[in-house]
């Protein structure tokens, strides 16, 4: 093995930096899943009857379903009766200031570099921080409320705005949609809710941090974002999770509704624990994310940077129902060590003159497998629909795999669909060129990979782009640096 390959090997075999456990007392449900557990969760959360009914319907439907086997990933059978479906930090207090926050929780955030007050002061970002299942702290809500913007935990929204939840919950991702969406609908713990009223431009980036924090706990987040006519919002979500030996299941659902002339930008940086370098432990991330452009000229844009999880199974999609509506998907997916990712998007063109853009950048290193799976469907009434897809794969080292599964279904002759795909390797000549200019191999790999991801990073909000680059660097170099 040449020296460069050796260094690459070291670099791509590095360990997860952010694995630590905080000792917050949990209020757990017993292991396993049945109607009683669903009721337990609903009771714990003090939910109205209609929501319990909805959960139960989802649960009954879930029991008739089987796990999907089509993704290009492999993992041992999940025992759904061996999972704890509810866990909440015990100390429930309403906080007047951040000083009242549980010091353990605060320390957890500090380790992650997510200091709430710093976020508050510096970035002007309203943060709804979620540890496990209960919303711990919501900031900036009052400022937002003045504009009529609702940004709260899902549970609070259930009580405060039941009419909105009733109207939109499951309207984009029905509980019948797929196995994991059904499971989530039955047992979802909490999440975020966001409503931007007509004509309002949200003045700040809305942001939520998630973190799995109780051993053996499944986490089932539910996010619902609604932009009413002419509204604009940019929503950020970032995750990190502590080190675990057991595999943890994460099956979230995100629904976005964009009405006429509304614009929703959803950005996420995902860094769940990927497992150790032999593939032990790590999060299974089986997520359903979908948005609908309900009205004319509506817009939804997904930007994701995926570096974590042992297994990722995620296809943020857009249903382009309104005429002239548009959907975007920008993605960087990094897999290292034994990680497996099967990720991509679906663009469903229904309205006339709808357009979509897909830019996917896959990076595989170590012994990982990275698949892009994307569907572009042009319905028969979608006159003059347009799609452009670009799917690039970058390989680092020679033991990893990159795969591309593009599906095109075009039922309208006036549609224009373009697909470009490339596969490249970080070349030894590129690394040597950087070395010769005084740049170390590690920095060279970083530089090259960052260059490769530039189109996607350019889509991220400024402060997030910096975080994404930091994360990318950690995924690539880890403790070697």
């Amino acid at each position: 093995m040449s020296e460069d390959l050796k260094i690459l090997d070291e670099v791509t075999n590095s360990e997860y930096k952010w694995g630590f456990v905080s000792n917050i007392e949990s209020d757990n449900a017993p292991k396993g899943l049945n109607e009683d557990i669903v009721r337990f969760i609903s009771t714990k959360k003090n939910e109205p009857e209609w929501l319990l009914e909805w959960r139960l319907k989802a649960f009954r439907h879930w029991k008739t379903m089987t796990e999907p086997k089509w993704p290009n990933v492999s993992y041992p059978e999940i025992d759904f009766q061996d999972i704890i479906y509810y866990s909440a930090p015990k100390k429930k207090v309403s906080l007047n200031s951040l000083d009242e926050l549980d010091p353990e929780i605060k320390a957890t955030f500090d380790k992650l570099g997510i200091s709430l007050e710093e976020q508050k002061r510096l970035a002007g970002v309203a943060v709804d921080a979620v540890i496990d299942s209960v919303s711990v702290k919501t900031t900036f809500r009052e400022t937002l409320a003045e504009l009529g913007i609702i940004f709260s935990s899902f549970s609070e929204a259930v009580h405060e705005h039941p009419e909105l939840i009733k109207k939109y919950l499951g309207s984009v991702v029905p509980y019948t949609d797929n196995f994991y969406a059904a499971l989530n609908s039955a047992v979802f713990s909490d999440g975020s809710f966001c409503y931007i009223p007509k004509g309002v431009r949200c003045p700040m980036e809305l942001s939520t941090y998630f973190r799995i924090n109780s051993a053996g706990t499944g986490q089932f987040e539910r996010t619902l974002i609604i932009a009413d006519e002419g509204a604009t919002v940019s929503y950020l979500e970032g995750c990190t999770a502590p080190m675990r030996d057991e595999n943890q299941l994460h099956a979230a659902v995100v629904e976005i509704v964009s009405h006429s002339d509304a614009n929703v930008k959803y950005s996420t940086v995902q860094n769940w624990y990927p497992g150790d370098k032999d593939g032990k432990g790590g999060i299974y991330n089986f997520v359903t994310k979908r948005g609908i452009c309900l009205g004319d000229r509506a817009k939804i844009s997904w930007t994701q940077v995926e570096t974590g999880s042992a297994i990722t199974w995620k296809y943020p999609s857009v249903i382009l129902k309104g005429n002239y509506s548009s959907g975007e998907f920008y993605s960087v997916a990094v897999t290292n060590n034994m990680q497996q990712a099967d990720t991509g998007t679906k663009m469903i063109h229904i309205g006339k003159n709808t357009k979509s853009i897909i830019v996917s950048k896959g990076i595989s290193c170590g012994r990982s497998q990275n698949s892009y799976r994307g569907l572009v469907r042009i319905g028969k009434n979608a006159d003059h629909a347009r799609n452009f897809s670009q799917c690039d794969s970058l390989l680092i080292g020679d033991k990893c795999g990159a795969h591309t599964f593009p599906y095109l279904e075009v039922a309208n002759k006036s549609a224009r669909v373009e697909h470009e795909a490339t596969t490249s390797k970080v070349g030894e000549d590129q690394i040597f060129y950087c070395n010769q200019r005084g740049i170390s191999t590690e920095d060279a790999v970083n530089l090259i990979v960052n260059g490769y991801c530039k189109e996607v990073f350019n889509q991220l909000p400024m402060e997030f782009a910096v975080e994404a680059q930091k994360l990318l660097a950690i995924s690539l170099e880890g403790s070697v640096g």
Partner: protein
Amino acid sequence: MLSIKNLQASVEGRQILNGLHLEVKPGEVHAIMGPNGSGKSTLASVLAGREEYEVNGGQVTFLGQDLLELSPEDRARAGLFLAFQYPVEIPGVSNANFLKTAVNEVRKSRGLEPLDSKDFLKLMNEKMKLVEMDKSMTQRSVNEGFSGGEKKRNEIFQMAMLEPTLAILDETDSGLDIDALRIVSNGVNALRGKDRSFIVITHYQRLLDYIVPDFVHVLYKGRIVKSGTKALALELEEKGYDWIKEEVAVNA
């Protein structure tokens, strides 16, 4: 500053350098000429530390250090610069960003503070003039979509930015038209100084009209078989290499 003694090197099991000797003192310009396959580019690659080349004998001392012990990046940081015969493209990485990383790495190794954006820009604007380079080039991805001439100019620009102690130009004149050759040569000449040395590898005497060397060496079968002044280059231009090959055969 550079002392090469009895250097032997091979690539993919093929012996290319067979006991090469060369002494380069501060401020000197040495031209290395020779027929195809004589080992000129191998010499450049070995000095820069390219992985595929295996050194199987001899010593190279650079500024008192054992050069062969150093990693490629440490050689660069110590002040050795190679202008590539085929500069490499790095998509998505702007020339400016690339150079800022490189310049600050080199500064760091010398215990200097990194340049801030303002000072870096100033330095860049100043050095760009040396090779008559357009400002837009700094925002373009490293060598991506550059013409042959632009790539070579970019190499000399990088050299100007990094201010090496020893610069090796590996056939920098190949693929250049007369105008580009003049620009590149002017850039090199502007960087000549009493503390900076050059090894200029070329096939053509023409380049040496612009970059006038102190010494000219002929490399043949992995050894320097003849050394002289600029006059030697002119003689080679006129007579070719056959007479040298014959001389070597007679002496052998």
